[in-house]
């Protein structure tokens, strides 16, 4: 069977073409074949397209021979658009492949070298049973040896007592200003914590227009305060190799009896019901002062705080070095840290104190609302701390007194049979 070739174009267009020929003796299929068959259809199409493109380019450039390739949309002519001196895409890709190969080769050789080294090391390898003698990597902790006590910067327990914090802040303020006045660097404020005597307790901080002045009293001087910070006295306990004379001093101070080291308790103390005279003996031997109670310390703190000029709270801390040194010292003494967002806007000691000493969060909402003084002055607002019952509602309406009067008249209980007759 004769193969009918494919025809380009729609059937309707083809039919119209056939009708135009007006030759009725030849059959439709043959006429169709004759009119539509063409070997140069693609090239004709291409020529048509390129002539159209050429005409358009001529019109755009306004010349007969516009620059650039004739058909800019043809992929085969991409190479002609290259700038001279620029490498082609193929050369770039080739060079990349070459580089990649070289890189892989170098990596492979490195790996081989590393493996060889590891093999050599593994020849002399023996697993150890403990970590003694092994190299320690990444351990930054200080080596603790006998007689060397590690003390961190901040205390272990954070101070919760308000008065302690106030005293610590006052101390920090005094010390910072004392170092300034003495011309010493502020970095030395946290060098030493003296626990025997605190000279800053007897110092008043008075802010003035020209600056802050320190008022010393009760024997305290600027040198005492500064020396307390700069000097770092070492106790005999912490010394690694004490001398003979220091050993003697320690022995004198020690409470143990070298002749009878085990007999520490007194026989009288062990008795369950000591007699009067025996109680006196115990009291005489005891080191506790009956006049000094635990409440005595509390009173002393508040007395100390009351003795200071209250203007010390208005001391300015706008100087950043001063503020930082004060906060560093307070942190060292109390263990309390303030957030950076709270530090930056604080300009006075009072503001710092408000961040250091925070009142405990109230458990009940009524306590929190009670702290808000503004709510008390709003006339249409009523806040109660107790649940409002029906009794309260009747009382508010004014009916309850009538109810109570009637119940009393009838001799009936107000709140039930078992409860006492009491009006709220």
């Amino acid at each position, binding site marked *: 069977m004769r193969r009918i070739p494919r025809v380009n174009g729609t059937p309707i267009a083809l039919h119209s073409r056939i009708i135009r020929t007006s030759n009725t003796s030849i059959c439709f299929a043959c006429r169709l074949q004759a009119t539509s068959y063409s070997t140069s259809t693609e090239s004709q199409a291409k020529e048509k397209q390129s002539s159209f493109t050429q005409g358009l380019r001529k019109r755009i450039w306004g010349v007969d021979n516009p620059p650039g390739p004739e058909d800019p949309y043809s992929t085969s002519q991409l190479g002609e658009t290259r700038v001279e001196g620029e490498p082609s895409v193929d050369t770039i890709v080739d060079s990349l492949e070459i580089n990649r190969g070289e890189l892989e080769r170098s990596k492979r050789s490195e790996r081989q070298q590393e493996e060889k080294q590891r093999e050599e090391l593994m020849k002399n390898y023996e697993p150890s049973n403990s970590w003694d003698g092994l190299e320690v990597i990444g351990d930054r902790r200080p080596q603790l040896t006998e007689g060397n006590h590690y003390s961190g910067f901040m205390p272990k327990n954070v101070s919760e007592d308000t008065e302690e914090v106030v005293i610590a802040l006052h101390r920090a303020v005094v010390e910072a200003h004392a170092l300034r006045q003495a011309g010493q660097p502020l970095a030395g404020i946290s060098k030493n914590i003296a626990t025997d005597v605190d000279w800053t307790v007897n110092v008043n901080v008075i802010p003035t227009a020209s600056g802050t002045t320190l008022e010393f009293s009760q024997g305290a001087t600027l040198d005492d305060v500064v020396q307390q910070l700069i000097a770092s006295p070492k106790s005999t306990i912490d010394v690694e190799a004490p001398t003979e004379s220091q050993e003697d001093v320690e022995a004198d101070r020690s409470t143990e009896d070298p002749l009878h080291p085990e007999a520490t308790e007194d026989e009288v103390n062990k008795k369950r019901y000591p007699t009067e005279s025996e109680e006196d003996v115990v009291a005489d031997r005891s080191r506790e002062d009956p006049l000094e109670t635990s409440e005595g310390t509390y009173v002393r703190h508040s007395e100390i705080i009351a003795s200071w000029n209250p203007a010390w709270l208005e001391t300015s801390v706008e100087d950043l070095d001063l503020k930082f040194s004060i906060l560093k010292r307070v942190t060292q003494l109390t263990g309390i840290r303030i957030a950076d967002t709270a530090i930056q806007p604080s300009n006075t000691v009072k503001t710092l104190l408000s961040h250091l000493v925070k009142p405990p969060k109230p458990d009940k909402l009524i306590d929190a609302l009670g702290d808000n003084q503004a*709510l008390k002055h709003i006339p249409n607002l009523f806040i109660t701390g*107790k649940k409002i019952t029906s009794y309260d509602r009747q009382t508010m309406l004014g009916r309850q007194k009538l109810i109570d009067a009637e119940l009393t008249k009838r001799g009936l209980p107000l709140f039930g049979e078992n409860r006492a007759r009491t009006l709220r």
Partner: protein
Amino acid sequence: MVVQGIKVATTGRNGVGAFILQCKRLEFFYCDWAGSSKGMNTFLRTNLQKFAKANPAIEILVSPRPARHPVIRGHYINGREKAICVKNMKEAQILQKAELLRDANGEKLRRVVKPVKSVNDSVRGIWSPYHKPGGGGMHV
């Protein structure tokens, strides 16, 4: 015939001459223990003062209601009450509910079928069987 005026009894319209706020009292109930009352507690700590100052004509009562969900109850002039449970709501949502109760009257919530109420005459006239567009209708 003498022209006579239509006798119409005067009816009060709230807001035309004077405006009377229908809500006379708002009660806020909270709980210190329940977790659903967290938003209410925060609202009372932060927004209550502003809300009370902004509405001086409303009596505001705050009281605990232990072991219960937080509720806002509104009392109205017509003697009715409306309560909204504000459990697990944020303070902004609670404020919204408080404003809703403040702006409401004590009427029951009804489905509104005809949203327009007017005393004006109907524009197209009332239907009658005797008149049809384009003529027609009943002939009597």
